[in-house]
């Protein structure tokens, strides 16, 4: 309930120990859940394409495939191109990865399972997920590779373009709930999930499409597609740094799904009558369901060309999001 502090604060008093516990919990969630989503991607794509996916790594249906990937990447040679800017080159993966970890701090996973109840939760989450653009630009520029630079600029243009619809529909939700705190928004959906309002349903669709474009996932993966531009900004990265980029992609999927479930699907709120299942299971269920949809999009749609992508954002999604804000404000004032 609102007013109760998080479980970490009540478990152990004081300031430093709960802080360390919260940090550790966030880190554990960030290291485990994206691996599960990555494994799910292998298997979901495989079964959608009538094949099996990883079966050998780990005795049961290859569950340890991503763990094997991690162990292998630790052993790889770390190549820094001779013409590259070594400091910027090495720092770029961190700049892409760390904001997503930090975003998890503000997201409530259960009624009392959160690290921080920020008053400006939505603002914080959206701002942090935009910091990754700088990392991509750093990677593209420091790689001293023409294709990397083009890929980075394409990615930056795409991420800027899709930031607008994302923020606008999030603003519509904030208006609906009357608060920017993610915990308050979840509590405001205790009887009626936001997605059940028709205009918020449209907003949900816009949010999901903009989130997929923010993550440069297919069908919006023109900046990193290998038939287009080898790997875009990440072309020259090997070993652990490359693994960090992959982790940030899957981590981004988890974070965006989490934010979408909080804003539209009621976060840890259960379906009416099923409140016997604890809140954090509902939350993880919704996160995995939305991640499944994002992976499903990859299996289904061909890639959008760069100009189609930009047109879709500026001429399609942004005006629709603005109209949405109008409808929400009419509803809030009038009803």
């Amino acid at each position, binding site marked *: 309930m609102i007013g109760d502090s998080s479980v970490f604060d009540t478990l152990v008093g004081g300031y430093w120990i709960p802080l360390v516990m919260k940090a550790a919990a966030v880190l554990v969630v960030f290291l485990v859940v994206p691996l599960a989503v990555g494994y799910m991607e*292998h298997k979901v794509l*495989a079964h959608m394409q009538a094949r099996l996916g*990883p079966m*050998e790594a780990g005795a049961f249906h290859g569950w340890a495939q991503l*763990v094997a990937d991690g162990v292998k990447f630790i052993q790889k040679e770390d*190549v*820094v191109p001779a013409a590259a800017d070594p400091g910027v080159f090495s720092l770029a993966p961190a700049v892409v990865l760390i904001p997503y970890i930090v975003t998890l701090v503000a997201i409530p996973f259960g009624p009392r399972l959160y690290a921080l109840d920020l008053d400006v939760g939505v603002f914080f989450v959206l701002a942090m997920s935009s910091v990754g653009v700088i990392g991509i630009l750093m990677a593209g520029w420091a790689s001293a590779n023409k294709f990397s630079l083009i890929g980075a600029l394409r990615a930056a243009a795409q991420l800027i373009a899709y930031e607008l619809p994302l923020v606008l529909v999030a603003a519509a939700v904030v208006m609906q709930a009357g608060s920017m705190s993610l915990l308050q928004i979840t509590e405001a959906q205790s009887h009626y999930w936001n997605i059940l309002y028709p205009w918020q349903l449209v907003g949900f669709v816009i949010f999901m499409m903009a989130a997929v474009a923010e993550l440069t996932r297919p069908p919006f993966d023109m900046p990193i597609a290998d038939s287009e531009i080898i790997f875009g900004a990440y072309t020259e990265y*090997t070993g652990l740094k490359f693994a960090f980029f992959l982790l940030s992609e899957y981590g981004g999927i988890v974070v965006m799904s989490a934010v979408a479930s909080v804003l539209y699907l009621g976060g840890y709120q259960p379906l009416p009558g099923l409140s016997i299942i604890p809140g954090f299971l509902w939350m993880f269920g919704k996160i995995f369901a939305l991640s499944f949809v994002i992976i499903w999009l990859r299996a289904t749609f061909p890639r959008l060309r760069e100009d189609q992508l930009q047109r879709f954002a500026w001429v399609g999604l942004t005006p629709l999001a603005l109209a949405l804000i109008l409808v929400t404000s009419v509803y809030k004032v009038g009803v």
Partner: protein
Amino acid sequence: MAQRGPDVGVITEKTPIAKIKPVRFLLNWGRRYSLWVFNFGLACCSIEFIAASTAKNDFIRLGVIPFAHGPRQADLLVVAGTLTDKMAPVIKRLYDQMPDPKYVISFGSCSNCGGPYWDSYSVTKGVDQIIPVDVFVPGCPPRPEALLHGIIRLQEKIRDEDIQEKFRSGTTAVS
């Protein structure tokens, strides 16, 4: 080109921890089941390679993730098809761009030994004249199942490998 030589991760090269049996097993296991393959498809054998990546003979089952975006992200180079003299410097350059530890499968008789074109004036008779090869898969073209067999043989080879020995003896690259 890299600024420094193969610096293959602190764990494997610098510390003696990699000599401890369970750790060595774990490291070899990771390398074995996570082979990102850079397909160097030159000719007809590449069609068989692609067939091995499709639904019926899926080599992702074995942990070989297909179509790494570029040589920098790959561990395994599958040379499928005829290597001509004009292409030889290119394959050497791409092999050098791959980070260590890396493995090569020579797929099909053209890349094993020149194949049916062994008497041609422009064919390199075997890709192992240019880069070191770990597994040769014979056939013209080999069936996709033959590639799966070759990958399993490579995985067995990696399982029994001592990675520090591999880099000390300098057998990773032809000089």
